[in-house]
C-alpha cells in the first residue's frame, strides 16, 4: 500500500474514532443536552482552520522571500483547506445555537470574528482568480495573505472588545474552559483528528496544485510555439 493510502486510512480511522468518542465516550452536558456534542467538532475545526492559516502565513512569507513556486502551492492549499474548516465552524455554530437559543445567529464575538476571517480568505482566493500572470498572482496573493493574517488578531481583539460594549449571548463556551476531564480528553483527541485531516487535505491539494502548475506550463509553452 502506498504511503499516501496509509496516511489516508490512518486519518480516516482517527476521524471516525473521534466521532465515536464525541457521541459515546463523552458524557452528556447538563444544560444543553446532546446538541452540545457538536462543540467538539466545531471547536476542533476552528483550531485546525487557524493552524492552516498560520501555515499559509509562513508559506506566504517564504514565497515573498525565496520566490520558489512550491511556497505558492502550499499557500493556496492551506488557504483553501483553512477556509473549508472555517466554513464548518460557521455552519456548526448556528446548528448549535438554534436549539439552545432559538435563533440561528447571535453575533457572538467568536463567530463574528471567524466570519470576518472567513471573508478575508475568500478575498485571498478571489484575488488569485483575478490576476492572470502566475508569478504576479503568487506574489500578490502572498502579500495579501500576509496582510490578512496580520489583521486577524486585530479583528479578534476589536470584535471581542465590541462585545463587551454590546453584550451578546455567549453561544460557545470557552474552548476547554470548565470542561470536565473526560470531555477535555475527547476534545483534544478530536483536535488531533481534525489536524490529521487538515494535513491530509493540504497534502492532497498541494499535489493537485503542483500537477496543475505543470499542465499550465506545458499549455503555455505549446501556445507559444
Amino acid at each position, binding site marked *: 500500500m502506498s504511503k499516501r493510502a496509509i496516511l489516508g486510512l490512518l486519518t480516516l480511522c482517527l476521524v471516525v474514532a473521534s466521532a465515536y468518542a464525541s457521541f459515546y465516550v463523552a458524557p452528556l452536558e447538563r444544560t444543553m443536552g446532546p446538541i452540545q456534542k457538536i462543540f467538539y467538532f466545531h471547536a476542533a475545526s476552528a483550531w485546525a482552520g487557524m493552524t492552516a492559516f498560520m501555515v499559509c502565513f509562513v508559506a506566504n512569507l517564504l514565497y*515573498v522571500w525565496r520566490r520558489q513556486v512550491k511556497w505558492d502551492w502550499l499557500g493556496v492549499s492551506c488557504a483553501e483547506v483553512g477556509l473549508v474548516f472555517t466554513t464548518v465552524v460557521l455552519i456548526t455554530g448556528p446548528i448549535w445555537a438554534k436549539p439552545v437559543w432559538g435563533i440561528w445567529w447571535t453575533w457572538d464575538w467568536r463567530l463574528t470574528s471567524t466570519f470576518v476571517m472567513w471573508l*478575508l480568505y475568500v478575498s485571498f482566493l478571489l484575488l488569485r482568480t*483575478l490576476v492572470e500572470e502566475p508569478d504576479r498572482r503568487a506574489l500578490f496573493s502572498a502579500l495579501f495573505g*500576509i*496582510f490578512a493574517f496580520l489583521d486577524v488578531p486585530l479583528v479578534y481583539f*476589536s470584535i471581542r*472588545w*465590541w462585545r463587551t460594549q454590546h453584550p451578546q449571548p455567549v453561544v460557545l463556551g470557552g474552548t476547554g474552559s470548565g470542561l470536565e476531564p473526560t470531555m477535555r480528553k475527547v476534545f483534544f483527541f478530536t483536535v488531533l483528528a481534525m489536524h490529521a485531516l487538515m494535513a491530509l487535505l493540504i497534502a492532497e491539494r498541494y499535489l493537485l496544485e503542483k500537477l496543475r502548475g505543470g499542465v499550465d506550463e506545458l499549455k503555455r509553452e505549446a501556445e507559444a510555439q
Partner: protein
Amino acid sequence: MSIGPNTLALLGKELQTEFRSRELLTTTGVFILMVLVLFSFTFDPTSSESRRFGPGLLWLAFLFASSLMLQPCFLREQTNDTLSSLRLAVSDPFSIFLAKLGANTLFLLFTELVMLPIFSVLYSVHVLPQIHYLLLVLFLGSLGISITGTALSAISAQARMRELLLPVLLLPLLTPILVASTEVTVGLLAPEPFMEWKGIGVLAIFDLVFLTAVWLFGEYLLEE
C-alpha cells in the same frame, strides 16, 4: 535623495495635482453625502437613534467612500508609466508609498471634516464639544484606511475587476478600524461624552502594524 525629501517632493506633487483638478475630493464628498442621505431612510433619525446609529453609519460611509477614492491611486501611474520613472528616480520605494498614503490621509481627512457639520445637522448630533477628540479618532482612522488602501490599490491596479476587487480586499481588512472608530465616536457623541481610549489604542496599533508591513513589503508591491 533620501526618504524624507523624496516623500515630501512626491507628496507635494500629489497635493498639487489634486488641487488643480479637485476631482477626487469633490466626488468623494458627494458620495459620502449621498450615503448619509440614503442611510437616513433606513431608520428613524430621531435624536436617540441618531446617536446610536449615526457614528457607525458615518464611518461606514467613510469606508465605502475611501474604497472608491483609493482606486486611482496607482492606476493613474499606469497612464504614462510614471510608476517606472518614479522607481528609477527614488532610492527607496517606501517614499512612494509614504507620499501616497500621506496624501490619501489628507484627502480623506479633508472630506471627513467637510462632512462632519453636515452629518451633525442631518442627524441632530452635537460634534463641536468633543471636536478635539473627534479629530484624533478621525485622523487615526483615516490613517489606517489610507495605509491599507494605498497598499492594496497597488495590487488592484494590476488585476481584473479592479473596481470591485479593491473594496472586496480592503473592507474586511478594515474591520478593526470600523469597530474601534465607531465605538470611540459613539462615546464622544453620547449624552455624557466619554473617551474610549482602548479604541484609540486599537487604531494606533493597527496603523503601526500596517505601516511596518508596508515598509517591509512595499517594494514588492511595486515590482513588475
